[in-house]
């Protein structure tokens, strides 16, 4: 049996063992932020209590320990990303800062009037807005690959439209690996190959893929790949940007300050090599330590065991929700991560969110920072349940029961006249 011992796994996450509003907590909002195992909390506490000093400066023992902890964290993450070079891994505050870094630092030097930045309607706002900002400054234009609005593959990107939009004017493809709003997995490798064939830079938002699967961004054919610690069982305030070495080496700094320079004089300064060039100021050292501990934890569980568990939860929850009359899953067809976005006739997602919370079930209700997607699908909002390997079938049942309770309150669903 390679399956996870779910009771032991749940014991690793102290936060899960609590009552909310008189019910056992069912935390199904993992796509917004996942919880941290004890191993992460312990690593961070140990660093803070024993090893903290500033990094890359100072000759004393604690400075050496802190620097080592920080750089070991970078190596752990580089190994996790399919064995890329640690020099290609930049620590950031999170996916949002990573994407802003690429848009600002690469875009300001490489984009101009007539150039096109190809995003998609599935993107999180963080992979749209930074591109709009740099487009406004450079004269480039942002266009979007549409999602399929109906049919069996509703909610997936329209690959025919994507190919028809590709030409030499497209300088950037900015695409999410996994949709945060729907959970659908985009065929990123094929899209990257097509985009590179017309000379476009390929920037992948991996925030929602990292918690679910082993990712090798170089093998995917990406130029940049971004992720967030807190979506993958690590802390908030830390994330990463992987960049292809030769692309990073050709980029000017994103922010100026300490750590990112080689020499400074009033007449001018020179830059450190990547990744330090893109890490101005004292970094989030304890965050990096926590992120590395999260990676170690994922490896200890095993990526295959995690995937098997999440597939089971996705299938169980899909079946339980589809059995409810008046409920429609948006983006039902795979390939998918363990995320289910749905609407219920006659019950607004915000009301459903409140009713579920009263039953201890935590979900996200709203536009999921993906307003263009909601507009495309003609929906004001959806309810999203996102599962982690530590979730249970009992929690799936609590979700389904909560939806039925909402239908009862609103007089809709099976019991309605």
């Amino acid at each position, binding site marked *: 049996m390679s399956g996870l011992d779910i009771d032991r796994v749940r014991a690793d996450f102290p936060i899960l063992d609590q009552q909310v509003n008189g019910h056992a907590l069912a935390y199904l909002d993992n796509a917004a932020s996942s919880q941290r195992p004890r191993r992460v909390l312990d690593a961070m506490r140990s660093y803070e209590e024993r090893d903290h000093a500033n990094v890359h400066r100072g000759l004393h023992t604690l400075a050496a320990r802190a620097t080592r902890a920080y750089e070991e964290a970078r190596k752990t993450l580089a190994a996790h990303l399919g064995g890329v070079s640690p020099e290609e891994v930049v620590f950031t505050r999170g996916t949002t800062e990573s994407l802003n870094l690429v848009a600002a630092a690469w875009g300001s030097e490489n984009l101009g009037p007539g150039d096109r930045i190809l995003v998609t309607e599935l993107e999180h706002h963080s992979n749209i807005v930074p591109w709009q900002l740099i487009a406004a400054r450079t004269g480039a234009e942002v266009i979007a690959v549409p999602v399929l609005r109906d049919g069996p593959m509703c909610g997936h990107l329209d690959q025919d439209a994507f190919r028809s939009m590709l030409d030499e004017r497209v300088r950037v493809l900015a695409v999410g690996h996994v949709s945060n709003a729907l959970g659908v997995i985009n065929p990123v490798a094929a899209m990257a190959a097509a985009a590179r064939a017309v000379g476009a830079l390929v920037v992948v938002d991996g925030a929602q893929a990292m918690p679910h699967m082993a990712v090798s961004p170089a093998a995917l054919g990406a130029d940049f790949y971004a992720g967030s610690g807190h979506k993958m069982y690590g802390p908030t305030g830390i994330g990463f940007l992987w960049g292809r070495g030769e692309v990073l080496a050709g980029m000017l700094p994103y922010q100026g300050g300490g750590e990112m320079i080689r020499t400074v004089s009033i007449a001018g300064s020179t830059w450190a090599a990547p990744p330090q060039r893109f890490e101005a100021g004292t970094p989030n050292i304890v965050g990096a330590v926590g992120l590395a501990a999260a990676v170690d934890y994922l490896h200890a569980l095993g990526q295959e065991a995690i995937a098997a568990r999440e597939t089971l939860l996705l299938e169980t929850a899909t079946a339980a929700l589809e059995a409810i009359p008046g409920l429609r899953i948006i983006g039902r067809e795979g390939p998918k991560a363990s995320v289910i976005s749905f609407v219920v006739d006659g019950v*607004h997602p*915000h009301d459903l969110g409140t009713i579920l919370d*009263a039953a201890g079930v935590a979900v996200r209700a709203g536009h999921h920072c993906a307003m263009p997607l909601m507009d495309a699908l003609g929906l*004001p909002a959806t309810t999203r349940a996102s599962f982690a390997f530590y979730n249970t079938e009992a929690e799936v049942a609590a979700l389904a029961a909560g939806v039925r309770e909402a239908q009862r309150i609103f007089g809709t669903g099976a019991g309605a006249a």
Partner: protein
Amino acid sequence: MDSSELMQLYQDVIVDHNRSPRNFRRIEPCEAAAGCQHADGFNPLCGDKLQLFVQVADGRIADIAFEGSGCAISVASASLMTDAVRGREETGARALMATMQSLLTGQRAVDDALMDEVGKLTALAGVAAFPMRVKCATLCWHTLEAALDGRGQSTTE
């Protein structure tokens, strides 16, 4: 929060006004010169949208109507509001707005004096137990204020 608070929030009046909102229409044409004010309300956090039309004549709200989409609390609150302020003096509507603000944020308890003041709007009192939902209920009132002030827009930020 427990299930009784949930029942308090989603009582029959709220469910009914959500399913069959009153005064759910537009006033057309709505021209400022003729005393009609229009304002859009928007809650950027959740996407609730509201278009409010207010026809004022001789300092009195002669007609009021709305369109929009949102959760049950926001739709029912707007529906109840239109019924409550229709025919009132503008000053009276503004006073009611202030009372509702304190009711919805839990600064004022439900008692006989309050019930005399707000009537059926008492049904919204349960919102006070759900701090995350207060803005759903106040959106329409902010939008009414924007319309009466001659501002075209209101957000709950």
